[in-house]
């Protein structure tokens, strides 16, 4: 009985009657919350026209790259335009946008900065199985469990787990067994390698008079300071770590073959012209001389083995960078006559 009275009393209250008269949803419910990810906003002035947003977009009609018209002052710029009728508000375009500040903003996910990227350095660490002595010092030094593992008696670095801390490189007792390869600036690295190799070759050919007197057992040694080379390498790419690393790798691995050419001994027999596989040696009938084009030459030693008069000389040179620093570094060059047989078969 009492419950029934309470029930009726509930309806008799003024507040109930008021809310019954104006039965409306609380406007706060209808309002869009702050965390809601709405359609992306585009700021064309930051855009670098990379197209990453169009590649990341899962909807076919949502993002289009358009190009503004060229004016007298400046060229037109390509920037993304969002079609709201195709956009699914996933926010991927804002997450992949590489510009700072972001060209496209959408929701809040793109504001999250990852604590570390997949590769925090621009180097990739690999183990050269040929040089590895399997001492497993890198395996013990590695701070990430499972990043370096042993399989089929090979020590392997798992690139998906590697954090690029360089511990393996610092603990390796063998020079060159763990390699920190720079995976950025590939074109610049090529230019630096070409620069060093060309300079070394020029330096050795400049000493031709000393080399040509070498007997089979003798070794000719001379030094080349690298200060000037470093200056030129820095003009290609100003990254001292990368330059030192590239210099070291070149001098460790390079085995340069040198072909010298002594025209005084030439009897114009033209045996070498036909033998040369790259057509680097030509005979000029008017001037009656044999010419060798150094740019075409493969350094294959065929002319050296063919010539009966010893016009072509063939030498092998090796290098060492010591001490390994960019300021005081000196490249020690050793040139040795090749042990190949001479004279046509």
């Amino acid at each position, binding site marked *: 009985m009492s419950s029934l009275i309470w029930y009726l009393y509930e309806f008799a209250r003024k507040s109930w009657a008021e809310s019954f008269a104006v039965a*409306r949803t609380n406007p706060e419910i209808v309002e869009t919350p702050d965390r809601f990810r709405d*359609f992306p906003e585009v700021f064309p002035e930051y855009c670098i026209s990379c197209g990453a947003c169009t590649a990341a977009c899962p909807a076919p*009609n949502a993002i289009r790259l358009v190009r503004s018209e060229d004016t007298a002052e400046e060229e037109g710029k390509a920037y993304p335009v969002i*079609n709201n009728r195709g*956009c699914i508000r996933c926010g991927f375009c804002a997450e992949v946008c590489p510009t700072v500040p972001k060209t496209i903003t959408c929701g809040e996910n793109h504001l999250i900065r990852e604590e570390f990227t997949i590769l925090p350095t621009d180097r990739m660490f690999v183990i050269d199985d040929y040089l590895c002595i399997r001492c497993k010092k890198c395996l013990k030094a590695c701070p990430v469990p499972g990043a370096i593992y042993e399989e089929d008696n090979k020590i392997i670095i798992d690139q998906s787990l590697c954090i690029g801390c360089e511990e393996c490189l610092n603990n390796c007792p063998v020079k060159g067994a763990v390699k920190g390869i720079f995976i950025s600036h590939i074109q610049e690295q090529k230019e630096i390698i070409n620069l060093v190799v060309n300079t070394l070759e020029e330096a050795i050919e400049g000493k031709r008079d000393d080399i040509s007197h070498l007997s089979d057992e003798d070794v000719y040694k001379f030094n080349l300071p690298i200060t000037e080379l470093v200056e030129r390498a820095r003009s290609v790419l100003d990254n001292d770590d990368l330059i030192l690393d590239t210099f070291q790798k070149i001098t460790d691995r390079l085995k340069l073959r040198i072909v010298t050419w002594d025209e005084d001994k030439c009897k114009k027999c033209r045996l070498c012209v036909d033998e040369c596989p790259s057509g680097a040696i030509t005979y000029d009938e008017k001037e009656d001389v044999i010419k060798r084009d150094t740019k075409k030459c493969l350094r294959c030693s065929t002319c050296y083995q063919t010539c009966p008069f010893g016009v072509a000389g063939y030498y092998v040179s090796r290098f060492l960078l010591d001490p390994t620093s960019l300021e005081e570094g000196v490249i020690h060059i050793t040139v040795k006559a090749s042990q190949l047989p001479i004279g046509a078969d």
Partner: protein
Amino acid sequence: MLDGLKDVVRKSSIHVCLINTGGCNGCDIEVVALLSPRYDLEQYGIYVHNNPREADVILVTGAVTEQWKENLQRIYSKAPEPKVVVAIGNCPLTGDVFNQEGCSVYAPVSDFIPVDAEIPGCPPRPSEILAAILAVGPDAIAAKGRQKP
């Protein structure tokens, strides 16, 4: 006088029919959220019937598949005048993620039936759908009702 009375009645009582022409059902779920006590569609005098014969507003979702091309027009023809078509979500507008190369979707819906209001979003918020129905529904129905057939 009679028109004025009709207007009041039409504006305060809108009957809605929901058609999914082949989408992911996300927009339909948002419409169901509208029916729930939180948004409470019926407080605005909007009733969902799912019967085109007594509908004033036809809500279209989905990207119009092969089977729906004729059925959509059939349903539209069965709704009594005055009628208003509201396209919900991106599917009826552009085909959205279904409009890939080689997919048999025939978006947009406006190729088949006249569309009065469009709500972009994938899916749109319930409040956006509500706002669109309220913005276009009552006045359009009243205005269409006054037209002489």
